[in-house]
């Protein structure tokens, strides 16, 4: 019996079953309600507040929240830059790895600060353990910031809640200690028991079956991988990320990691329902996200399991499906599932080579990042979705003859301006980035010959993928792209930076501005946002915006490749 399909169905069901109670728990954390974890973490949090000189009871408005988030990020960015450019002489470097060049350190620091974890280096040779640990800390901070800022937007969306948005430092500390930390401990222990190493010792020697002796890199991998997946970070400890047998040793750890990738992004949707006391709204959003996810997933699984027709034409059977670039222990279905899973959530860890996906699967992975809100990154995925809700509310409000309102607040020119800028930003960054690289390559192919391993449509997809990944703060790579050059390091660095912070600032500004508005009670004429019709509308807006922005680019990349193979 084919167990591949039941395997991925099981992985999806498991995550939904876990996300429901977790969502309620996160909601309670945001609302400062009693939970089981209080007795453990109240003293811990108090210690943090005392060390940081924070009064968690101080109320902040949305501008102060943003200022707090940005200053936390700036300070840690500078520390990360320092560590990465100086780690060769700093402690915890048993393998004597060198420090990073300035442009690579810039790219890497930004990449982790922004929850992208695009890696233009390989962990085994590019980082000391201190470097790895500082990046691991970053995986907590960037994910914690994402969850906390989503919490701020949730609070702002509450009815008749003018200005009461809580304290950012408090939300941030609670997100890290009470949500990320316990989950990371559980997951890293499970990984540890299943073969992922956890040590500060340097490389070890192994004698292979052929009798050669191989130096095997190791390190504090289990802890690193746990937060990499839970915080939708995706930065691998080793270069090959979760395809590496020490990061992801077995089908079981693959299940654990797949569940971990989805867990918090889905739970955030249910947390919204809990905080707003609007469970139906949460379910509507969940269904829209799920439909989008499935529309990307199903063709991908089918394509990968069917194999590559070009190979079939060569007279080679592919009973296992398209297995190029995949790990045999996972198989094509679980790899396809992961490919979509990691791109829709802005996680970016990989368990297969995305460069080797069949054309349409590659396109679906691209689309996952281009849409970037079917579940999305922890916290920020919802913020992206929120922008589309605002657009959908506006258009559908007009369609029913009423000035648009969302959760009792009128949406006017100011909100539309912000929503439009944010919705535009993503296509702008992806398309102009890809256009720049295409331009350079097209006009001086010999100078940039090192960039593309594959010419033609696939090379175009590689460049498009890199910028989509940077702009979606995803971090996965199509690979096949020579990306450790100043152009890619700096261009992607800037894209990641802009694509991280503006889409946080925008929704928070909208939510803050709406929260300050007068509450309009619902009447029979009000368009309900928790209905299937409105869900369909939101989906249509997301699909149309993505299709209109990216259709020509996709036509020249994966679609052209598809028609030339099939």
């Amino acid at each position, binding site marked *: 019996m084919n167990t591949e399909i039941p395997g991925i169905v099981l992985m999806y069901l498991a995550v939904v079953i876990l996300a429901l109670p977790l969502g309620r728990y996160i909601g309670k954390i945001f609302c400062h309600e009693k939970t089981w974890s209080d007795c453990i973490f109240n003293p811990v949090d108090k210690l943090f507040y005392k060390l940081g000189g924070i009064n968690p009871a101080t109320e902040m408005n949305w501008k102060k929240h943003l200022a707090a988030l940005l200053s936390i990020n700036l300070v840690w960015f500078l520390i990360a830059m320092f560590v990465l450019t100086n780690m060769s002489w700093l402690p915890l470097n048993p393998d004597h790895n060198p420090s990073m060049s300035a442009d690579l350190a810039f790219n890497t620091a930004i990449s982790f600060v922004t929850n992208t974890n695009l890696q233009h280096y390989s962990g085994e040779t590019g980082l000391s353990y201190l470097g790895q640990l500082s990046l691991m800390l970053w995986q907590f901070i960037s994910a914690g910031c994402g969850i906390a800022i989503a919490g701020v937007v949730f609070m702002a969306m509450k009815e008749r809640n003018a200005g009461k948005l809580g304290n950012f430092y408090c939300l941030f500390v609670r997100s890290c200690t009470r949500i990320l930390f316990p989950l990371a401990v559980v997951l890293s222990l499970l990984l540890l028991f299943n073969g992922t190493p956890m040590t500060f010792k340097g490389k070890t020697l192994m004698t292979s079956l052929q009798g050669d002796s191989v130096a095997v890199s190791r390190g504090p991998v289990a802890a690193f991988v746990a937060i990499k997946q839970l915080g939708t970070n995706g930065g691998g400890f080793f270069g090959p990320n979760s395809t590496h047998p020490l990061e992801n040793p077995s089908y079981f750890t693959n299940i654990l990691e797949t569940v971990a990738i989805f867990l918090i992004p889905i739970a955030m949707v249910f947390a919204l329902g809990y905080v707003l006391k609007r469970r139906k709204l949460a379910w509507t959003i969940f269904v829209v996200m799920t439909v989008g996810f499935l529309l990307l997933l199903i063709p991908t699984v089918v394509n990968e399991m069917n194999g590559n027709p070009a190979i079939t034409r060569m007279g080679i059977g592919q009973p296992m499906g398209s297995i190029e670039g995949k790990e045999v222990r996972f198989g094509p279905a679980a790899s396809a599932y992961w490919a979509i899973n990691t791109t829709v959530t802005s996680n970016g860890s990989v368990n297969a080579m995305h460069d080797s996906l069949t054309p349409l699967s590659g396109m679906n992975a691209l689309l996952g990042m281009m849409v970037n809100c079917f579940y999305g990154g922890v916290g920020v995925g919802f913020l992206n979705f929120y922008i589309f809700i605002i657009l959908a509310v506006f258009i559908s409000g007009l369609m029913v003859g009423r*000035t648009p309102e969302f959760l009792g607040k009128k949406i006017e020119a100011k909100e539309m301006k912000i929503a*439009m800028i944010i919705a*535009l930003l993503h*296509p702008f960054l992806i398309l102009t980035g*890809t256009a720049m690289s295409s331009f350079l390559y097209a006009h001086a192919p010999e100078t940039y010959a090192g960039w593309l391993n594959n010419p033609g449509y696939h090379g*175009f997809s590689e460049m498009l993928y890199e910028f989509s990944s940077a702009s979606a703060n995803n971090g996965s790579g199509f690979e096949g792209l020579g990306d450790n050059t100043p152009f890619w390091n700096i261009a992607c660095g800037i894209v990641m930076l802009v694509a991280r912070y503006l889409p946080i600032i925008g929704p928070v500004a909208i939510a803050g501005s709406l929260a300050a508005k007068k509450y309009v009670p619902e009447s*029979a004429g009000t*368009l309900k946002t928790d209905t299937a019709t409105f869900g369909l509308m939101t989906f249509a807006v997301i699909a149309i915006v993505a299709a*209109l922005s990216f259709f020509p680019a996709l036509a020249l990349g994966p679609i*052209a490749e598809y028609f030339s193979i099939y």
Partner: protein
Amino acid sequence: MKPNTNNKLFQSALVQEALKQSFIKLSPVKMFRNPVMFMVWIGTLVMAGVCVWIAAGEQKQGSLLYNLIVTLVLFITLLFANFAEAIAEARGKAQADSLRKTREETPARLENGHTVSSSQLKKGDIFVCEAGDVIPSDGEIIEGLATIDESAITGESAPVIREAGGDKSSVTGGTKVLSDKIKVKVTTEAGESFLDKMIALVEGASRQKTPNEIALTILLAGFTLVFIIVTVTLKPFADYAQTPITVAAFISLFVCLIPTTIGGLLSAIGIAGMDRALRANVITKSGKAVETAGDIDVLLLDKTGTITIGNRKATNFYPVHGIGEQYFVKAAVLSSMSDETPEGKSIIELAGINPSNYQINQPRFIKFTAETRSSGIDFDEVKIRKGASDAMRNLVEKAGNHYPQETDERVKTISSSGGTPLVVAENEKVLGVIELQDIIKPGIRERFERLRKMGIKTVMVTGDNPLTAKYIAEKAGVDDFIAEAKPEDKMNYIRKEQAEGRLVAMMGDGTNDAPALAQADVGVAMNSGTQAAKEAGNMVDLDNDPTKLIEVVEIGKQLLMTRGTLTTFSIANDVAKYFAIVPALFIASIPALQGLNIMRLHSPETAILSAVIFNAIIIPMLIPLALKGVAYKPIGASALLRRNLLIYGLGGVIVPFIGIKLIDILVSVFI
């Protein structure tokens, strides 16, 4: 003459004027107001440049003919969009002109005996009008009473009475005095009347974008920006794919993608909204007021005239125990002899007795005053009084007489069944009770039902006591009522609803309504009302029809919906246009992309031409819809969204596939 209600959309005179305007509006200053169409304007210029370039010998841009056709189609697109705006303006203007005709030059006789032309009248001037005169200007009667034929404005042939003081003191220029003589004070400067303001709004001189229009323009500008990015980045993409793309193809792709359909029709929709209001004989002071009307949550309606037909009528006589029916009826008739109110007359009507049949010596009539709240007649030793129950109880008990229990009960029964009781007393002793009944307008219940489905709460305002008010409220199907309402009660109610975040509309005519009219989000003043009321409201109803608010709400909703649905349609169209143009751009160098040419268009050139031609002709095809507005059906917001999403969303995806294919078949015959 009733204002032109001709619903024919394109009258030849208007079309001619609009065609002329379409060219005048090509001026860049005017085009700049509309970012979407301005982009098309630039595109047309660029294409014209390309044509010159080709004529000068450029080889790589395709044939001159093909480029000329593209340029021409773009130019026509601009004209179509301008035509849409111009025809809407022309229709609005024609409508306003037909009203303005009523106020052509008329001689005005001033108080001091001089006669001047109406255009020379200044604010504050006082003129005199007698039977047969046409009133030269809007104003307020300061002396006298007259019957006036207002049919020129309202289309209603029955004459109305206007008199100095009170709430019916306004007269409108162009109406005709039928009897008596009045002195009128001019209230507005020439050229500043509401009608003049309205005409200026329609003509665009003072038309400002409403907040909603601004938000929509941002959305459209956003989509335009997306497509600028898409088109500009396509050039390096094409370089990478080693595909040369002609300027014509770039411009065509861009123009097809930006939302030209809604961009071209946007201002026409706004003007048509005001025009529809004008056709309903409502003058709006701003476009915003019409839009706000669509958002109204609470509607304050006066009972009399809106919910019930005019006035109450006497329906029953109830003498107290021990008083003969005939005796009581006689007293009731006598007490109403000098009562000129419709209620008073209806008592005599019900009795069926001519009061002059009674032999009365030296009657003295007692007029109704606010203090006594009763009226009546004194003759010989007899004093008959008729009034509200509490006033009569005071009168009776003050004289030391017993106020009968059964009267008390009768009063309550009548009140609770929606009637108004009037107690009649002779020499401070109760004789009995007259029952007056309100008659609820036929069909009003259904209208309130419709409002409820729109999500609008209706509130009845009445001077009746709470029991009567409750009964009528239930019978008419309103959601709430304000009984024994004083002007400040309305104001307080509006403030309370607004504090809870609702938008309130009301209609009023009196000076004491003015503060509430100003406070309400939509205040509709009756044209017959006082100048103060008209200044305070943001709309004036020429028909003085209290149910007009309901129409205004629907006009507002239609306006918003027309914008929303056409935006959706416009953006949904892009899917098909992509499938037409993108394969056409790349097919030469990437034959594999033939797979995307799902419409099987004839050649890249015909594909691009078909797309731009479709993009152009969809504008005039939608003008009728833009002018008439999308039909509003009160079926609940979600159902309405489903319906419009299906028609304009899904329709917007499918229609261009069919349209472009058909045009392609036609075009490929010629090329």
